[in-house]
């Protein structure tokens, strides 16, 4: 995949891009961009994939101008518009915090989104299933909550960090998490429940059976609120099904997107 640094409006946006065909946008989770991860590269086999880094993460700017979720949606509207103009609409795959963003974009801009895939999305809150606080738990606790098999995956998680992004990987991570707090602190609910019924796109919801950051019970909550959605729980994976259960993840996504 290629790394593209472009300016949209006045905002620098870094994206990983590759492939040809109908446009597919991938929005990453709250910790980091996965870089040219294997699942993204495989998606480029039959799709024009574009995976932008969120404002405030890595090398993408524009964070200071964001006040609330509407600013974020307008930012992504500008990112998606050109591709949508050419193809009518685009497919959106959003993971974790990116899943929350993708759902918001689909609710605010139904004209832009053909099909929607939400992977372990944040954005709702159930009192009967309170989410752990990803900013307060220790790194070992976070690792345990996020993987089905922490030993196998902790050291192998792909990321978009490159020399020059920040003084160190740790500083890059701090910067990313700081930006994520904008939408997740102290509770990752910015009113998405009110807007989900406005989503028109056909939606696939994917959760990892062993996700303890956003447990699969949230799949039901999303399904109930979305007019046209079905959900699938993938076994043997946690908060990152596209990494831990890559083949099963790709099979579900491809069969849904067609």
């Amino acid at each position, binding site marked *: 995949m290629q790394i593209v640094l472009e300016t949209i409006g006045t905002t620098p946006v870094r994206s990983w891009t590759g492939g040809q065909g109908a446009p597919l946008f991938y929005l990453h989770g709250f910790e980091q961009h996965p870089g040219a991860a294997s699942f993204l590269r495989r998606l480029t086999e039959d799709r024009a994939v574009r995976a932008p880094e969120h404002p405030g993460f890595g090398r993408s700017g524009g964070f200071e101008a964001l006040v609330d979720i509407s600013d974020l949606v307008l930012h992504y509207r500008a990112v998606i518009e050109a591709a949508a103009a050419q193809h009518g609409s685009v497919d959106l795959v959003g993971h974790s915090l990116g899943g929350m963003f993708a759902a918001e974009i689909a609710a605010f801009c139904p004209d832009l989104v053909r099909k929607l895939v939400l992977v372990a999305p944040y954005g709702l809150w159930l009192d009967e299933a309170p989410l752990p606080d990803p*900013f*307060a738990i*220790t790194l070992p606790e976070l690792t345990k909550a996020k993987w089905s098999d922490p030993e196998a995956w902790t050291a192998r998680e792909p990321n978009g960090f490159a020399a020059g992004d920040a003084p160190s990987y740790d500083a890059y991570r701090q910067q990313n*998490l700081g930006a994520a*707090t904008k939408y997740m602190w102290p*509770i990752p609910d910015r009113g998405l429940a009110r807007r989900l019924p406005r989503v028109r796109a056909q939606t696939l919801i994917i959760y990892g059976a062993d996700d303890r950051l956003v447990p699969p019970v949230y799949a039901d909550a999303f399904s109930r609120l979305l007019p046209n959605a079905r959900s699938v729980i993938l076994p043997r994976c946690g908060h990152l099904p596209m990494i831990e259960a890559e083949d099963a993840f790709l099979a579900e996504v491809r069969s849904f997107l067609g």
Partner: protein
Amino acid sequence: MKVHWFAEASYPHLPPNFRETGLSSWVTTPAHLHDPYEVGEMCRMFIRLMQQADREGFDGLAVNEHHQTPFAVTPSPNLLAATLATTTEKAALLIIGDSLALYNPPMRVAEEMAWLDCLSNGRVIAGFVFGTPMDSLYCYGVPPLELRERFHEARDLITRAWSEPEPFAFNGKYTKLRYVNLWPRPLQPRMPMWVPGSGSVETWDLALDNDYCYGHLSFSGLHSAKPLVDAFWDYVDEKGIEANPYRMAFTQLICCAETDAEAEAKYAEAVKYFYRNRYVHPGFESVPGYRTAKSMQSMAQHAQQTTSKLSPEDKARAGRGEMGFWEYDKHGFIVAGSPETVRQRLEELAKDLKIGQLIGCLHMGNLAEEVAVENTHLLGTRVIPKLKHLWTEFEDRWTPTPPARGVRASATPALVRNRELARA
């Protein structure tokens, strides 16, 4: 030099094995560990001690704000200050301070401090704080990246509300008010204002650019503080500002008794209790986005200088309550001993750090009231009188000057401002 009386109002009845349980002493500390009846008892004790401090010559009574912690059961410093305003006479009410981002709208701070200034006959020092990550971000849920912006917007609103003679509209990002017209106005034409910090350059700028007193409020003692305090004074010089010791405050745990041996016998357990039970779950101590990159850099740099006199291992031991009494004393975590020893040590400390406002912590942990009474009495009668001569060549603009009777009417902000305009 000015000496202010202070104590973290620590809950004194935590179980002896509290530290070993690994429970955080902030944010999520189980509520069943406290008895509200005992909270009433301890709060009445702190009020009695501060009333005594007022009678015995302390220059100020410091009150602070913390949430969801047995370390300091003081959710509202303004409530405590209100209790003191009518039961004390001379000492300044050092509110250090209100966590500005936690009051919505922040007019609450402007009103309450102004009202307290009226009630206390012009004795309020207005302290503005960001609050610890535990207090402001975790207990009160302010987004980390908004904290500083909310603080500054609130500060702007509050200081304008105190001084603008006419009603005005305030169109902030977080607070929108069509009519700001504060009743009552503070009695003092300009309340002294203080901000505490932990060594970030941004807070130094804030204090120096606005003529606030800067408080280095830590409990880690001289060795930890020295590099940061020296750097502050270097920065003051760089900016071409007068290095007036009164523009800096410093906290110091003090354990005074008739003899050194008595000091150890009376305070050793309370000092250990104080440090041992201050364990905070690491996840609550900071959060991404809370500190600016610039501030992290400068703190890392100073941390390196600190380790030359106090190794990280020793610092950790101190934090676990595992140092010996005189070891705490040696590293400056506490200043302990007879009145003469304490006087000497405080004078050296004040000169070494160039401190004009000393905030003495005269009660700590689970100290018995009678020991705190003695501590307060010895300081007030045998130490403070011998420290008064320090820094008399400087003007203290950061503590209240009691207004003369009958000037109230002419001290309304409108008239003050008109006078200023006429002078200009």
